């Protein structure tokens, strides 16, 4: 017994190395596991609050651009406000609430931390479970898709950016409804690839790419980006399409977190069907 302690003491450097290394690898694997929530991340209170303070300062530099986007969106929304319509009918209609039921909820949030230069990029938002944020909610801006919520703490949440090697967002081309997936190859923050579009489809540069109705996460029709370039390699049945994301990931600061009120119902139903 004594010999064991002497042995361990003599080689404590190697043993400590092995212990710390296995701890790191354990954390790494646990974090990579999408199903389980990681606990060392910037959603934790310390890091979140620190980044929040920093962001309060840097936000001023992108204020002008953020204002432009919000103003443009306000104008768009004003267009839909009842006061901007001319009433043609004479009779009074009651809006019947049983016809339209709300499916999507929008919560405004601010980006307090982000990366764009890694292979796997994340954002941190200043909204958490106290504000009703849950895992797998969609994150968008008025001009494009941002990503999907990963971990949630009381006041913060982390978001898997579209610029993440494992991120796969279902998208379609707006004018012909052919659909594929958005994947990122990890190199350029201003180019994301749209794959699985068959070679017989007619494409044009500048076509808009939007989200599909297949995912239970994103509402249909949110802009993803515009086609920058496309090519068809000889012998390949699918295009390689380069899409310029609508969101400028380097300066994104105000986002919406979108919750789908009917998501559980849809997911449950689809699971039941595939289990048969």
């Amino acid at each position, binding site marked *: 017994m004594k010999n064991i302690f002497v042995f361990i003491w003599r080689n404590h450097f190697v043993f*400590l190395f092995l212990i710390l290394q296995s701890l*790191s690898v354990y*954390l*790494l694997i646990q974090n990579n596991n999408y199903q389980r929530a990681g606990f060392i991340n910037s959603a934790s209170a*310390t890091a979140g609050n620190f980044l929040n303070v920093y962001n309060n300062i840097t936000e001023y530099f992108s204020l002008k651009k953020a204002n432009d986007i919000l103003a443009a969106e306000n104008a768009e929304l004003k267009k839909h406000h009842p006061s901007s319509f001319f009433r043609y009918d004479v009779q009074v209609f009651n809006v019947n609430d049983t016809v339209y039921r709300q499916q999507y909820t929008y919560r405004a949030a601010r980006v307090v931390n982000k*990366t764009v230069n890694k292979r796997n990029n994340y954002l941190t938002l200043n909204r958490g479970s106290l504000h009703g944020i849950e895992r797998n909610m969609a994150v968008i801006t008025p001009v494009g898709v941002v990503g999907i919520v990963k971990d949630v703490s009381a006041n913060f949440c982390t978001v898997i950016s579209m610029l993440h090697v494992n991120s796969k967002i279902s998208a379609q081309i707006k004018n012909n409804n052919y659909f594929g997936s958005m994947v990122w190859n990890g190199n350029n923050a201003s180019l994301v690839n749209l794959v699985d579009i068959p070679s017989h489809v007619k494409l044009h540069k500048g076509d808009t790419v939007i989200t599909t109705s297949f995912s239970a996460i994103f509402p249909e029709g949110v802009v993803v980006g515009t086609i920058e370039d496309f090519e068809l390699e000889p012998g390949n049945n699918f295009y390689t399409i380069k899409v310029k994301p609508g969101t400028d990931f380097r300066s994104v600061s105000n986002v919406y977190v979108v919750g789908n009120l009917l998501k559980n119902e849809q997911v449950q139903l689809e699971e039941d069907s595939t289990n048969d």
Partner: protein
Amino acid sequence: MIELLVKNTLRFVILIIFQVLVLNNVELGGFINPYLYVFFILMLPLETPGWLLLLLSFLMGISIDLFENTAGMHASACVFMAFCRPYLLRLISPREGFDRGSKITIQKFGINWFLTYAGIMIFLHHFALFYLEVFRFSSFFSTLLRVILSSVFTLLLVVITQYLFNPVKKN
């Protein structure tokens, strides 16, 4: 002793802040990610006991992980780098050994020695880090290119920082 403690604590905090707020936002062609925070581990005193070296490196790595959402990745690379440090120092020690209490500076050991020491350490760290990040060997050579380019850039930053912290004294 107290001075050493204060100096290293300050270095620890400043390097983390600089890494998280400045360097993590640097984007150079998608291939270069400088990680200057390893400067802390490079500069730990020569007499630092092994266990303390490992623990401090782990602490450094996990602090960076906290801000980058990469639990364990930087910690693992840092611990690996710290583990290699004593062996590397033994390998490239001057013929008469190190003087007690001498600081690791370019002025004392010369630019060649420092570049060898820092270069190998940084390469080991970046190598572990970048391969852990992609977690596969399929894009081996493109990752290797990123490792080499980023190492060179970090080394450059380390040398500059070294001169900033220890300015050359004029006669």
